[in-house]
């Protein structure tokens, strides 16, 4: 087992292993200290940060669905300044790549948040959450319009030299298009998928189950859809990929690597199995050694079709 090399290189970003926790499902990291040693993880993506603190949506905010969950948290977060002052320093003692997930309602907001993050001590990279409604464009998601997306990524690219990850929305006809646009804008890495737009209805109450009416679907239910999208993006572009969507164990992670991902992110799984991400690191090494794979990166795109 010790023989397996788990390190992965995603362009400018090197991770000690390919297991990264996903934004919005891992708090600001330290919430998980009672369950695992953060230093075992390849990386941590923190909760989406906006320019100012946000209180989020009114509850109910989540709903359980068959093998999945809908959420409409509304990006409740402490804001970028509190993150830099309080949350990021608390992660300095840990040997893991800390990635900031960034949210904006307008292009300028993304740029401003990234300007503040650029050069922050202990920050390994920035992930742009482009599944946000663009208030200047009538609420359309940044991530679904390739031109808008390329412009946004280029604008952010100008203000930061940190590794730049663009997290793609799956709510599109062909995910290859935003993938190419993000790369054209200057993305170093693509991560996918964010949640699928969905809705739950309470038949008894004849009401949407979420106060926000619509929410994002995550969890094992979406795994086949996410795997397909990773496979497709891997064929469409040449940059490294972080794959995610319903990963619950090391075998699921291997599937994403085989589909073309260089690393994976663990989301919903953290809620029900808070120590799970760390377990997966060990299990992945074990899986590799059992299959005589010396370097985990050999798995990437290793699908025999």
């Amino acid at each position, binding site marked *: 087992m010790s023989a397996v090399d788990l390190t992965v290189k995603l362009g400018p970003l090197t991770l000690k292993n390919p297991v990264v926790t996903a934004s919005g*499902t*891992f*708090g600001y990291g330290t*919430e*998980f200290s*009672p*369950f695992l040693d953060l230093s075992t993880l390849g990386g941590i993506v923190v909760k989406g940060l906006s320019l100012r*603190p946000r*209180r*989020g949506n009114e*509850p*109910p*905010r*989540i709903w*359980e669905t*068959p*093998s*999945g*969950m809908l*959420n409409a*948290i509304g990006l*409740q977060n402490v804001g970028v300044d509190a993150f830099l002052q309080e949350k990021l320093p608390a992660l300095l003692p840990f040997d893991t790549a800390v990635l900031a997930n960034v949210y904006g309602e307008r292009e300028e907001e993304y740029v401003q948040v990234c300007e503040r993050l650029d050069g922050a001590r202990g920050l390994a990279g920035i992930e742009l959450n482009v599944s946000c409604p663009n208030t200047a464009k009538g609420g359309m998601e940044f991530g679904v319009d390739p031109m808008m997306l390329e412009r946004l990524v280029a604008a952010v690219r100008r203000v930061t030299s940190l590794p730049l990850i663009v997290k793609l929305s799956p709510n599109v006809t062909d995910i290859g298009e935003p993938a190419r646009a993000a790369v054209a804008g200057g993305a170093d890495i693509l991560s996918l998928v964010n949640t699928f737009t969905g809705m739950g209805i309470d038949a008894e*109450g004849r*009401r949407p189950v979420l*106060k926000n009416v619509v929410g994002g679907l995550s*969890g*094992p*239910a979406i795994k086949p859809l996410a795997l397909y999208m990773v496979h497709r993006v891997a064929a469409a572009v040449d940059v490294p990929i972080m794959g995610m969507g319903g990963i*619950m164990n090391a075998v699921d992670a291997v599937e994403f690597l085989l589909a073309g991902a260089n690393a994976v992110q663990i989301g*919903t799984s*953290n*809620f*029900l*199995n*808070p*120590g799970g991400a760390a377990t997966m690191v060990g299990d992945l090494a074990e899986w590799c050694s059992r299959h005589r794979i010396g370097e985990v990166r050999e798995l990437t795109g290793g699908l025999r079709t």
Partner: protein
Amino acid sequence: MIFSGTVALLENRDLGHDNFLAVLDAPEVGQSMEPAQFVMVRAGEGTDPLLGRPYSVARIGEGPNGVTIQLIYKVVGRGTGIMAGLRAGAELSVVGPLGQPFPLPEDPQVPVFLVAGGIGIAPFPFLSARLLAAGCHPRLLYGARSSGDLVGRDLFPPGIEMEVATDDGSGGHAGFVTELLDRHLAALDTRTRQRAMAYVCGPTPMMAAADAVLARHESRGHLSLEAFMGCGFGVCLSCVVPLVGQETGYARICVDGPTFPAGSIDWHRSQSP
């Protein structure tokens, strides 16, 4: 560290009227548990249902490997339904202890009321044991729809005075349990009333009513709130509730609660749809 792992079900006793007592072989959880703290439990195989369900710990018992934790639960949906179908020997996935416990009264001589509505009885056997040990003399006020729903009274340590209320009048006071609380507080002199302490657990409307009673009598109290919980340890941000004087944000019931001091919940803003 908080325990997260698999534990064995040692006993799953039918208490009647869809209520059960589950005894779990979970010494790592039980040893540091406090009253009103809870565990997240997943029962059954597969990913449907996906998320854990919160349960208060009703009792700490003796078990083959140290202490056991004992849960009283009522079958209301899928998760509780699956749990009710398990036999001794089944494995459950458990995370805990979680949440803020009920703080014990500083002065054991004050009147202490345990106000339970329905399955809100769950945390009180454990709390009672701790209160007795601290020299308090708690009185249980226990309300339910009907007398058959008044389960678990035999799980309390001896020496707890009990009064019951039923909506349909089939047992004890015909009416709400909060009316019993109101009466008891009203019977106290002002100074005693202001030092009296109530611990409340039950459905949300009953807790709002109890909170109003406590405010009217200027009595002290702690409420243990309910919410659908995605994680139980503060990261999914699903279990939020607005507090009085905190207009710009929310508390998380799972980590800031489930116990909150009486008077702290902004009931007006918290009404869910």
